[in-house]
């Protein structure tokens, strides 16, 4: 039993601190994690896809979520899409600060592309979570 635990401890390598920072950078600015790792092609492909997805979502009139809407328990319904939106890191934060994509405008909601837009904004965040995990794995040496 003790021997097994020792073998498992030997096989486990601690994650370097830089990997966490790379992961944080990858989340905060889509593509930045791979750029810091010198993976230009991946940065352009993966980060670019997230940026395009986000910009298209905004152009389609999409709406992002925060906790300001809803009453009582219904506010909790905002949390799952908000987690998706939060994946875009600085893009979400800057948009929130500027009020872009957060306004409750009936004309915006009536646009044909509104539904596509908010889905694109959520997808952008979810894709960036994948990009972030990829950058983290590379930085931690778990992936080539």
């Amino acid at each position, binding site marked *: 039993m003790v021997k097994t635990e020792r073998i498992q401890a030997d096989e486990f390598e601690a994650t370097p601190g830089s990997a966490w920072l790379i992961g944080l950078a990858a989340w905060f600015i889509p593509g930045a994690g791979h750029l810091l790792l010198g993976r230009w092609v*991946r940065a352009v*492909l*993966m980060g670019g*896809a*997230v940026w*395009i*997805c986000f910009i*298209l979502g905004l152009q389609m009139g999409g709406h992002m979520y925060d906790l300001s809407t809803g009453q009582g328990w219904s506010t909790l319904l905002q949390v799952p899409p908000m987690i998706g939106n939060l994946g875009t890191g600085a893009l979400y934060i800057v948009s929130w600060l500027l009020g872009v994509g957060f306004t409750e405008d009936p004309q915006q909601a009536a646009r044909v592309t509104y539904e596509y837009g908010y*889905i*694109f904004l959520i*997808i952008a965040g979810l*894709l960036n979570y*994948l*990009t972030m995990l*990829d950058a983290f794995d590379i930085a931690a040496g778990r992936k*080539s």
Partner: protein
Amino acid sequence: MTLFAALASVIFAAMTKDTTRDRWLYGVKVFAEFMAIGLGLSWVLYFIP
């Protein structure tokens, strides 16, 4: 749907495969699957009132 399929397949292919050839093959495959399933579901839902 096409845009979503293209963007998602780029990321999936870049993440999961190591060589450029494998990435292309996997990306095209995922893109085709997204499109086929999306169109298939659309036709199914079209007939459901």
